[in-house]
């Protein structure tokens, strides 16, 4: 059966978060343009074989975050917001940074250590390559 969203049980994140992420991704890559109509909650629940309540929760959060708008009796649509994909990329970056901070904490790194590591990582590669050669 064709479905726009797939759920993984090996993924430890709750199912509604997986749905949110995949819909955000669809919007970010431009598959779903502003005004695009989303499947109804019940239809997506049937297609992905998860409960209606789970899809409902995902849609509510997407609505709250301004990714989609729901018009009573008409359905849910991708919000008319041109900056959406940039905003999503920022959110994605924040998520990666939080994950990095988490690993840093496990390794016992201070916030400064972590910031330095990030600064190193942000160096363009061409800057680094000649530098190492000079030393050698």
């Amino acid at each position: 059966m064709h479905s726009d969203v797939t759920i993984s049980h090996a993924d430890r994140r709750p199912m509604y978060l997986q749905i949110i992420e995949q819909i955000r991704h669809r919007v970010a890559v431009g598959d779903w343009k502003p005004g695009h109509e989303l499947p109804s909650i019940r239809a997506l629940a049937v297609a992905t074989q998860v409960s209606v309540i789970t899809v409902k929760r995902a849609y509510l959060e997407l609505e709250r975050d301004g990714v989609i708008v729901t018009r009573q009796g008409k359905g849910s649509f991708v919000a008319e917001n041109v900056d959406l994909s940039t905003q999503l990329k920022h959110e994605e970056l924040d998520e990666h940074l939080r994950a990095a901070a988490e690993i840093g904490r496990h390794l016992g790194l201070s916030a400064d250590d972590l910031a330095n590591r990030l600064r190193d990582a942000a160096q363009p590669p061409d800057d680094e390559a000649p530098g190492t050669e000079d030393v050698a």
Partner: protein
Amino acid sequence: MSELAIQVAGLDKAYRFFQLRDIRLELEPGQILGFVGPNGAGKSTTIRVLMALVHQDRGDVRVLGRSMPREQAIAKRDIGYMSEDMRLYGGATIAWHMKFVASLHPQWDHDYAQTLLRRFSLRPEQPIKVLSHGERTKATLLLVLARRPRLLLLDEPTTGLDPVARHEILRELTDVMSDDRRSILFSSQNTQDVEQISDQITFLDRGRIIESSDKETFVERWRRLQLDVPPGVALPSLPEVTEISTSGRVATATIKAYTDEVAAAFTRAGATVREVQRMSLEEIFVANVMLSRKEARS
């Protein structure tokens, strides 16, 4: 149609060695209720009371708006019931059973029955006795589904099935939900099945309901915290914490109603919250049963 599909209050049923006590259930149309419990918890007995196969000692049982067992004849026209102990005729074929059930139920959907035969990879000319357990379960479910009943009462429909058969059955159950007037109550020991397709979840243990709520609330409330506890630090005892196990400087706390305040309380006491983990429905179920048994002892 705001009438509840199932409405049970104060249901009691006593046997010599087992009793159901104060069972309360509510299921809205368009929803799936997953009934989870260990062996002997009372899942089957409760479902049999809903079907009026067993009569309650006390309590109000309404199914599709009908009072059970009094109005069972009317209610049962719209209920599809399936359980382990249901027997098909071994010598008769699937086609024979389909014809038989169709003759009893005018709303039998012939086209849907054909579709289900294909989806379940069943051959109508096969006699029941040559079918595997999985095929027999699917054949039984086909006979129930093709009547398109408004309420499905399924007692362990996926137990003992291989992953493919389980998937096929779960797909049909979610498919039913495309019609928002239909409802399903199913029991299972497979918490993953329940977590996937249920809107409402009820945990049953030793004849009592130990927790019941919508799935998202369930999964959202429970957390497990990994804590680092320096020597000399005593962890506070919080009402939200159901269990703490300590090993050296590391402790794991199971929380039944997590808020950031719980983590803050541990931090104030001098512990470090290393990780806040979500729990699977299976982990929540086990923690819940342990908690309710502990409370019953004290």
